């Protein structure tokens, strides 16, 4: 059988084009399109949402919120990766989602200095000042870790992120819930390119 020359040319071109771009993809297929193996904003939103949903759906939440939404403190996410990630922003996302769920109540610890100042002012100048040491103590604490493992083999770079979240009862010291989510990204360096 004789194969037309332009077929061969087309096939060769297709093969060449296929080798043209450095590709990055998730190990697991997801809907969002990654642009690099770095931990990006979409990863962040995805992880925060999944983890919070997982916790809110857990039975343990029914048990602890029987007497109304318990007071929760959300610790800053610990960055154990090789990238400079604004973990404060992840922490904010998690806290916001939890607040909106109305399953927990919160204290705002970021304005602590202003609060101290106001209480001191009240003590000095107000008629009926709020005495210190009367605030409710948080019963639960939510802590999270983000870690990264990177491996390179020839043209393939494999980056694995793991987000771990756990809920601790501060009264008993027990861990009452924990979950983890993994994101795996792979990047292949192209053979031909600019």
């Amino acid at each position, binding site marked *: 059988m004789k194969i037309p020359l332009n077929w061969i040319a087309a096939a060769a071109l297709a093969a060449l084009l296929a080798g043209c771009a450095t590709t990055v993809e998730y190990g697991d297929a997801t809907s969002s399109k990654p642009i690099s193996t770095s931990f990006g904003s979409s990863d962040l939103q995805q992880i925060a949402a999944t983890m919070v949903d997982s916790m809110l759906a857990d039975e343990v939440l029914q048990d602890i919120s029987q007497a109304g939404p318990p007071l929760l403190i959300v610790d800053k996410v610990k*960055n154990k990766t090789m990238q400079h990630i604004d973990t404060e922003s992840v922490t904010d996302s998690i806290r916001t989602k939890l607040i909106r769920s109305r399953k927990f109540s919160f204290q705002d610890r970021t304005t602590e200095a202003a609060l101290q100042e106001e209480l001191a002012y009240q003590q000095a100048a107000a008629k009926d000042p709020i005495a210190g040491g009367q605030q409710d103590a948080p019963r639960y604490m939510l802590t999270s870790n983000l870690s990264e493992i990177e491996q*390179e083999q020839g043209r393939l770079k494999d980056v694995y992120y793991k987000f771990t979240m756990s809920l601790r009862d501060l009264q008993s010291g027990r861990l009452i819930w924990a979950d983890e989510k993994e994101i795996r990204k792979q990047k292949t*360096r192209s053979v031909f*390119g600019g």
Partner: protein
Amino acid sequence: MVEGRSISVNLQKGLRTVLAAGLALAAAGCGTFNHYPLGMEQTTLGPLRTGQQTDYRKTFRKRAKKSNAGALFALEWGRTAQLAGDFKASRDAFEKAFAAIEDLDNRAVVSARGAAAQGGAVLVNDKTIPYAVPAYERTLAHHYQALNYLALGDLTGAGVEVRRANREQEQALQRREKEVAKAKSKTENVAPDDERDPHLGAVYAGLDQAAGAVKSSFQNAATFFTSAVIWEMLGELNDAYIDVKKALEIAPENHFLQLDAVRLAKRLGMREDLEDYERRFPRAAKMPAAGSDKLADKARLVVVFEDGLVPPRVEMSIPYPLTSTDSIGMIALPTYAAPVPPAAPVRVALDGRPLASTAPICNVGALAARALAEQMPGILARQLVRAVAKGAAAKAAHDQGGSAGQLVELAVLIYSLASEQADLRSWLTLPAHVQVFSAYVEPGDRQVALAGSGPAWAGPVTLRAGKTTLIHVTHIDLAVYSHVFVQP
């Protein structure tokens, strides 16, 4: 391979060639940084030696963006800005360097840009190839970037850079192991270093002298030590211990590393390791455990003392037999001239009371020499292709005969000689030696003094119980640069 005889020459063409050669010559001679060590000496190293201000932004800004050694210029920029105490500028410059390095690493295996540069390198010299940042420079870049984050009060950011520095060393080790395995599979029991070209004796002699006892081009105990200090600040004792162990493997005679290893092994209950340390380092065995009562109300004082500047590469022209043209060609190769003088410890005193002397932990000049020795086979291969191409062009012109031929031959000869230059680029603002000191002392506002052969350093230091204070001192000839990092 260049087929010499296919070149046909007429007078007009000959003139054009002379013109082209002239242009190439002019291009090769332009710019302060044509001779990299000289350019650095004039713009940066000279002022650094005498403590004068350097205009690092003006020197490096454009070059870091456009030149084919962008990553290298960004590294010099980052280090110079850090010495000047401009930690934000230094952080941004190192970020530029990391971006440039990543861009080079991510290039396609066969890239158009890469091929063009390699082609240029064959015609002119190695300086037209983008500067490939060796592993020891990559590691040190993350090391200094960690200090920038520390100075800016971002301990988590410092942790990220420490992990990156570790990754660089890890990856370099894997690459090296693969190379050794590959060489072994080719010829039984032969390490890549043993495949040395016998004609390069003089070049390797310089490199071996400079490298001294250092066996690896990337294993850097100073970075592991600094990493461990930052890990301890972050409360990650296990990570700190792992890095102290790695540092101790590279520099087992360093007493401060021995003390750290014992202190952390006791705290983490590493019984087998501890027995080993007690046997090997009896002087360090009495060090109490980290976090124990004896150390709880003390402050940790750490001194990192950097001395001198890493030596620049020098060019060496050697005759080399070119089998393909059956002649002897001159090729220019980079090497190191003289070995770096040994590290000179400095005495550390607290409130006038002497504590101990610093101990050497890293000879950066030796790392640079070892790295160059590892790159040498590749450099030689490119130089030979070039020598053969240039030789063939000269021969073709000679064979042509006549006045036009002579003119072209002369042009080719001038061009060959002028363009034959070794690649002398390397990160030159790095120190020659790094030494360390560490002790647990009474907290308070104290006076620390360093005294050695060069200019002394003394300054007030805040020491807080349970916290670390890191004094980073860089001594370059007549100048001393310092910064005190207090654990947040």
